[in-house]
């Protein structure tokens, strides 16, 4: 029994990390339809900067903020400078963002080297308790809490604020938003920045959980998160949350029994979902304006 509970808990923790990352991708890819294959690069940079900041200052809050800020800066530069000219060109986006991904992955090795950098858990979050046969780690609870807070916050902004309404409108019909006197490009850049910041934050939080940050962590994470956004349904936050947990638990279970098949299982989930519901679990059918 204990093993199942442990697997379930691990799955939920995995899922929480996935969601922190998927939330940003839901905004960028799900809503704005920018195929950002550099999203893992933002996560990577957030993770490194946070690990480095925490190692040098010992201030975890500062480390989280640093991770988010570096990703926001990178995200805005990317969006304004490079992605702006491939809006409406899906293959162009694939190639350009993959190019950015290569640059970000390789550039991080220049200051930090190609091997891993250890990322420590702050003392305030390093408790653990044995409940029955299950070990509960305080940092993991923190991760679950962080993802739930991000989920609720985004849900509120998107559906209860004027800004959220403009974002939803802009996704549907950007030209008409402009005709309403709203600078939609600025809104999009802002949404992109928020999505990038969330990737950085996810990386910053992932570091202590994984124990170390490595240059390949961005690539590894990115694919799973793309699958999650598609499975959940493009643009649906709730879908991303549910899919994150689903894939998180599946990954935990499958890697326990056959570690090499975890990626394939996620792909299979995506294929099955797409065959049954092409719009994803919580997605809406794409309809003309």
């Amino acid at each position, binding site marked *: 029994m204990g093993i199942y509970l442990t697997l379930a808990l691990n799955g939920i923790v995995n899922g929480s990390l996935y969601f922190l990352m998927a939330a940003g991708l839901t905004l960028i890819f799900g809503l704005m339809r920018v195929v950002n294959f550099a999203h893992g690069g933002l996560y990577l940079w957030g993770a490194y900067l946070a690990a480095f900041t925490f190692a040098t200052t010992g201030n975890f809050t500062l480390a989280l903020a640093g991770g988010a800020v570096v990703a926001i800066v990178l995200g805005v530069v990317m969006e304004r400078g490079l992605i702006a000219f491939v809006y409406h060109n899906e293959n162009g986006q694939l190639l*350009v963002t993959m190019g950015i991904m290569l640059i970000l992955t390789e550039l991080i090795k220049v200051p930090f080297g190609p091997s891993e950098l250890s990322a420590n858990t702050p003392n305030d979050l390093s408790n653990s308790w044995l409940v029955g046969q299950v070990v509960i780690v305080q940092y993991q609870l923190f991760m679950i809490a962080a993802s739930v807070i991000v989920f609720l916050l985004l849900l509120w902004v998107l559906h209860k604020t004027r800004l959220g309404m403009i974002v939803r409108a802009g996704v549907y019909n950007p030209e008409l938003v402009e005709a309403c006197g709203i600078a939609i490009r600025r809104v999009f850049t802002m949404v992109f920045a928020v999505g990038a910041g969330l990737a950085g934050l996810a990386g910053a939080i992932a570091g202590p959980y994984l124990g170390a940050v490595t240059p390949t962590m961005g690539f590894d994470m990115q694919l799973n998160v793309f699958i999650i956004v598609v499975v959940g349904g493009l643009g649906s936050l709730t879908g991303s949350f549910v899919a994150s947990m689903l894939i998180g638990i599946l990954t935990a279970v499958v890697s326990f029994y056959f570690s090499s098949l975890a990626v394939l299982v996620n792909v299979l989930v995506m294929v099955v979902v797409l065959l049954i519901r092409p719009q994803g679990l919580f997605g809406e059918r794409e309809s003309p304006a």
Partner: protein
Amino acid sequence: MTPRTWKIGSLFLLLLLAVLVPVLFGIGGPTNLLEQVFAFALFAMSYDLLIGYTGVVSFGHAVFFGTGAYVAGIFLVHSGGSTAGLLMGIVVALGVSVLLSLLIASISLRIRTVYFAMITLAVGQTFYVLAGSQMLQPLTNADDGMTVPLPVWLMHDRTVYYVTLLVLVCCVWLLRLFVRSPVGQVLQGIRENEGRVLALGHSVYRFKAVAFVISGLMATIAGILYVIAQTFVSTGVYDVSISLDVLLMTIIGGVGTLYGGLLGALLIIGAQTEFTNLAGTFPIFGRYTILFGVLYIVIVRFMPRGIVGTVAQALKRWSGQEE
């Protein structure tokens, strides 16, 4: 001169050069490098068939390349390097390739191109992990990779060189035939305007699937060439970075030009070798992937037709003005 004579002339000159290399420069370093270039050129051209002629981007084309290399490698190792083992390996590799491409096509070609990119990437990752897994250790030697014995008649470097060159030339010819066939014409139509081709009553999915299967076959042959040239195979052949290098070769050479892959492979492999040498003295050159990333962006932004496409267009304009 018309663009056509330019093209034929330059291809002929290249072929002549390639034939003469062992005579002029001897065997060893240069031919080893060129064997790799030939394998990757074929790989890149197979990729161009996909991205350039159907407009779908794959991030996992290494699946076919790696499968070609691994299947041929496994058969050679377990037959002790016999000719029969090599032939069996080739036949099985091609068969596996067709099955694999049909499977991937059936689940992913009908959906958005982005999903196709994701699924191919994921399948590639799975093979990468599988090839290195302990579970398959008896077959693949897991993370350590396999040294592959070759049949006696293939032992000589010069033979390997000419065999890879010959296979490349044959495959280029076959690809050319395919691109110019009615099916190839429809594929180009799909790239230009999917809706119109649909209206003409063609099943776009079937044509894309055909292109995908042929593309996979060519990539598999490239993988077999690679293992013959390197006499070694490891999980590296399934690495995403291989898919991404080949994608770069294709777009540098020129998407939709078919021959661009030849040039792209030469440039990228040449650059990789050069940078790796330089990195011995200046470690910063070990980070040459940064430059490759920049190239991705620069080409999409400023040179979407690649080198061959841009030159061909310039020649066309130039000869057009001349008339």
